[in-house]
């Protein structure tokens, strides 16, 4: 297989010189024989995504006989992968109208493959104990009153608002400015460190105001309450600098590369059919995070217990 | 007879815009002043000499006198600033790079103070290097190299690496390497000054032997007067880049042109170098002499016995010509005079 790839690449270079330049997708063509080609799944950096990918990869590999390659990529980079041929599918996409415009409409290297069945919610949260102690804290208008509670070593004398991974799309800095909040946005660097901070906040009753989202396994274990921001209206987040409203609700969907979709393999059809609930995802996420299982073990457990859910996804 | 090497008006000036110095007023400045005025260093100043085929020509001077620069100018290892050089009648400065390389490959070889051996090659391949770069086949160059190693007395050391040999042996390798290409001229740049005195003497003997056997033209650089006197047919004394005197050892010791040379040769035992012609006196009128005269080329020391035992002065002759006579007085003067007790 690899030697074929080498040969293909070599001949490509020669032939391309003859007929005028190399495009960005050159050299990425897969051998188009009847064998089941490797499915390249992007893995975005949050556990819910990983749960989707774990189950999809498990069924593709173990039940359908496809080789699967998982690639740890941040969202934007995963989209670039459609262009280079490094990525066949993204299996939990949060909105990204700009990327859709670039890669689906303009470059025509990707296509939408329908919702995952999960509803996405992004918001500002505090641990439940705080709402008992400070009942009015769940309204953003009162946040300044409590800013002192949230001071940390990182927050420059203001209250700390804890955000996550740099690759997440957020409006938090704009919101802090535009809502005139006395807070500093501090980036923890990853989903896992937000979760850790949240757990500590609950366990040790430490104040914490943070960026969080559903579906999310943690909600099944501990309670966190969303802070009310000005209601989202269509288009209120159009100018990222002037945002002063809450995050919209997302319908999470799947994206595939054009090439992968056009080949219309059973793997593609399977990914197209994939659809489950937030609860399903939270179960697998919990396996992954708290039960010490790796991707395959977690997926195997869920697949064994939910045959009725996934059987219909597999094309006959 | 055409000289093997002829050097005329040779200048080497280091520094910025060096080419303006020779032939201008700057050329007459003393070294230090030239340096202060222009930042240039005149290493070789207006040097001319000729080397005859088969001759051993020694260039002698203190360190910094420009002798190493001079010898490197001969094959343009250092590019001369001005002047003429010819080797075997062919002007060297006009040579194309290719012809110059050819000269270095076939006609002129060099032996260096610090040997310049290639540490990553065995002795055999070091000696064969010159042939290798000429494209000689491996078998042929190894045969020749083995032969050369035998000639310098290194049989059986072929497969050692240079750093496994003593300094003297390394320099023998250097010598063999220079001989391997069968050049007409051998240049020696202070080849033995890095060696221990005993080994140095061996090596000097070796050079004399080789010169007798292979009869090449030798240009030999040294700062060691004894070495110069032992080896040289003629000696050139260099000082601050200028040629002070060229002559046979005898001429240098017997008739130094200035105090510099005189100072140089001051410690030389005159009786070892000078011949009888340097100490003859005119016979007194009616003076009786020994029957058998001495030839004028006899070194003083070799005549001591006869002169001291003779009852009368002995005549010194050049063929038929009578140069004068010597007796014990001249002898004794010559034997003690080389040590001036009082500084001049």
């Amino acid at each position, binding site marked *: 297989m690899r030697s074929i790839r080498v040969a293909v690449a070599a001949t490509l270079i020669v032939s391309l010189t003859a007929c005028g330049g190399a495009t960005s997708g050159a050299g990425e063509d897969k051998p188009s024989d009847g064998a089941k080609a490797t499915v390249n799944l992007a893995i975005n950096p949050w556990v819910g995504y990983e749960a989707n990918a774990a189950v999809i990869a498990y069924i593709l590999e173990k039940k359908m006989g496809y080789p699967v390659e998982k690639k*740890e990529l941040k969202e934007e*980079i995963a989209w670039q992968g459609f262009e280079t041929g*490094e990525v066949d599918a993204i299996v939990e996409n949060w909105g990204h109208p700009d990327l859709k415009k670039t890669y689906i409409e303009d470059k025509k290297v990707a296509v939408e493959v329908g919702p995952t069945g999960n509803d996405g919610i992004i918001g500002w949260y505090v641990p439940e104990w705080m709402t008992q102690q400070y009942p009015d804290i769940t309204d953003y208008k009162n946040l300044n009153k409590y800013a002192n509670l949230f001071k940390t070593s990182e927050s*420059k004398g203001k209250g700390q608002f804890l955000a996550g991974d740099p690759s997440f799309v957020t409006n938090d800095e704009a919101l802090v400015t535009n809502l005139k909040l006395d807070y500093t946005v501090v*980036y923890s660097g990853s989903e896992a*460190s937000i979760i850790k901070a949240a757990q500590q906040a609950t366990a040790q009753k430490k104040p914490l105001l943070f960026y969080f989202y559903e579906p999310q396994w943690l909600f099944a274990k501990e309670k966190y309450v969303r802070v009310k921001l000005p209601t989202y209206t269509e288009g209120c987040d159009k100018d990222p600098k002037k945002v002063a409203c809450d995050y919209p609700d997302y319908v999470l969907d799947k994206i595939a590369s054009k090439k992968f979709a056009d080949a219309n393999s059973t793997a593609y059809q399977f990914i197209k059919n994939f659809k489950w609930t937030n609860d399903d995802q939270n179960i697998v996420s919990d396996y992954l995070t708290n039960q010490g299982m790796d991707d395959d073990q977690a997926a195997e457990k869920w697949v064994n217990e939910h045959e009725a859910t996934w059987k219909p996804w597999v094309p006959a | 007879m055409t000289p093997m090497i002829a050097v005329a008006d040779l200048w080497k000036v280091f520094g910025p815009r060096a080419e303006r110095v020779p032939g201008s007023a700057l050329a007459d400045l003393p070294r230090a002043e030239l340096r202060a005025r222009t930042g240039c260093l005149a290493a070789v100043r207006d040097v001319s000499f000729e080397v005859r085929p088969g001759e051993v020509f020694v260039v002698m001077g203190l360190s910094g006198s420009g002798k190493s620069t001079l010898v490197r100018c001969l094959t343009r290892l250092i590019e001369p600033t001005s002047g003429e050089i010819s080797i075997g009648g062919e002007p060297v400065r006009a040579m194309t790079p290719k012809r110059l390389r050819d000269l270095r490959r076939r006609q002129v070889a060099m032996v260096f103070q610090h040997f*310049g051996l290639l540490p990553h090659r065995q002795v055999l391949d070091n000696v064969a290097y010159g042939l290798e770069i000429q494209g000689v086949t491996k078998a042929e160059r190894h045969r020749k190299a083995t032969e050369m190693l035998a000639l310098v007395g290194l049989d059986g050391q072929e497969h050692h690496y240079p750093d496994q040999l003593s300094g003297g042996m390394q320099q023998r390798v250097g010598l063999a390497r220079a001989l391997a290409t069968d050049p007409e001229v051998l240049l020696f740049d202070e080849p033995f000054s890095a060696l221990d005195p005993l080994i140095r003497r061996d090596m000097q003997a070796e050079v004399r032997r080789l010169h007798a056997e292979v009869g090449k033209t030798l240009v030999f650089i040294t700062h060691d007067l004894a070495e110069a006197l032992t080896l040289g047919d003629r000696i050139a004394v260099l000082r601050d880049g200028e040629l002070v005197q060229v002559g046979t050892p005898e001429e240098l010791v017997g008739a130094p042109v200035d105090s510099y040379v005189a100072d140089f040769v001051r410690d030389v035992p005159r009786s070892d170098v000078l011949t009888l012609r340097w100490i003859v006196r005119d016979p007194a009128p009616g003076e009786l002499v020994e029957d058998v005269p001495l030839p004028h080329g006899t070194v003083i020391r070799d005549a001591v016995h006869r002169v001291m035992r003779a009852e009368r002065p002995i005549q010194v002759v050049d063929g038929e010509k009578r140069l004068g006579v010597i007796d014990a007085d001249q002898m004794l003067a010559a034997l003690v005079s080389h040590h001036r007790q009082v500084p001049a």
Partner: protein
Amino acid sequence: MSAPTLTRPGGRVLEKAAEADAPRRGGATRRRTAGTVLIVLAVVAYLVFRTDGAPDSDDAAAFRFFDSVRDWVDANRDTSPFFLYGINYVRLGVRLLVDVVQAGLYGLGFAGLVAAVSAIALVLAGWRTGLLAFLGFLAFGVLGLWDESVDTLVLTLSAVLLSVLIGVPLGVLAARVRWVGATLRPVLDVMQIMPTFAYLAPMTLLFLIGEPAAVIATMIYAVPATIRITALGISEVPPTAVEAATALGSTRWQLLSKVRLPMARTTLALAVNQTIMLALSMVVITALIDAPGLGQNIVNALERVNVGAAFNAGVAIVILAVVLDRITTNAARQTRIHHARRSRLIQTGIAIVVVIAAALVTINPESLPQWSAAAPVNDLVGWIELHWFDATEGIKNRVSEFLLNPLESVLVTTPWWLFVAAVAAFGTLVSGWRAALIAALSAAGIAGLGLWQHSMQTLATVLVAILLTMVIGVSVGVFCARHDRLATAVRPVLDAAQTMPSFVYLLPAVALFGNSRFTAIVAAIIFAVPPVVRLVERGVRDVPPTVVEAALSAGSTPRQLLWKVQLPMARGGLLLAANQGIVMVLAMVVVGGLVGAGALGYDVVAGFSQRELFGEGLAAGLAIVLLGILLDRLTQGFHDSKGPRR
């Protein structure tokens, strides 16, 4: 004049060093007064002109410019001849190289590759190294990281091949052709102070994501060392040998191939060694732009704060680093020993047969007994978090409160022009006006990029980190210099620490301190202390024994000896350590953006993970480079060594 003529090396350099040293002695008191005046002036100016430290706009002109560059590239990637005939071919060529290397390594199979690496180690570096390589590569299988390790090896080797192909000829030219050397020097200087992070975004812009971009980024990171050390090796070839070969009529090419290169081969082997080590540490980081291998495991584990999983990958990286390092250093050492050719031939022959036989055997690495450190390490981390939480949190808060925050708020509220002026003034005082000019221009450039606040935050973190690094490094270094037994014990630890890729150092820091700026500081300290210790120790040990003897015979106490003799005389070593340390610290603090250190490092990561932030990310990368140049130039005056860094 085209026949090879000889020049005398060395003379100029000495002269220059002497010049640079001369004025410093005389003006010491004057400089001290000037320094005091400047400090007072700066404080007054700061108090008068202090700003409120408003956050950076996210819409600076520079960001828009970079965004427009990105848009142009995106739009023209498949149409512009620059890409069609240039960049895209480079990408294809590198991909071909990677595929060939990959096909080769995977083609050998598990048993074949283990045998091949062991055999190479055996033949090149002796049986001890062979055994080490054998066990090391088996360990990849045992850790369950075989494929990842091989992928990392593939990328490393590809990048090293490229670096050698490009770097060795350039190094030779730099050593032999004056203008090439003079042109390359500043370029290499900048390349070497460029933190790894700054490369990534431009790489993805030109070469997209994936192995080719990763290999090229790695090559850019590693090739300065290849060039520098090659040039050093070539220029160190004894002139006598070259002269002798010239006198025998060698052509230029013969001089190079038969004299210079073979005589520099020990140094060349060292160049390859350094190239491999640098490449390995960079390859791990390129996981961020979709390079496969162990870096993926580490990135993944960092995102999940799963220190145990990262530990496994870290162990594999360290093993790979140690094996490659030992093979190449010992091979370099062996080049000095003369072997009988025949025994070598026989060894090689047997090795080849064994490798071929092993390649035919199919062993699945997963069938080896498996072992993982993940669970125990995670337990340990859990325990530490539980029991040490107050202590670690205390240290973190203390440092943040009393060092980091005050410094950061001063820097952040300093108007940019005052900062530039201060840099220029102090730079002139410390490093001369030329260095000061470059440093001041860099500072102005940072302001022009529109990332002033973030740059100053990063700078504050860097300064605190370098302060702590120097305190720790100097104490340990001095201690080692005065206690031989301790030094012997510490040396292997330093050796190991210097072979590890920088990424690995994030792990213990994260385990202890969670995600914060202080985490980045801790990682930077762990990263930079070993070389500082080394330089300080050498500096103190290099103090001539006669001086020490004289001081002792005058009746100095050990403390007086240290403060009045050894430390002042080791000044050069200390300052060099500060210069090297500061560049390493900057590189690490920026990587700390991945673990909550924010500021420029965060901007870079955000830049290549979010489309809207691309311009800002690229600007941040540039700001990091400028910050690096600024810090390097300001401390450059401390020493005048132009030798290879790191």
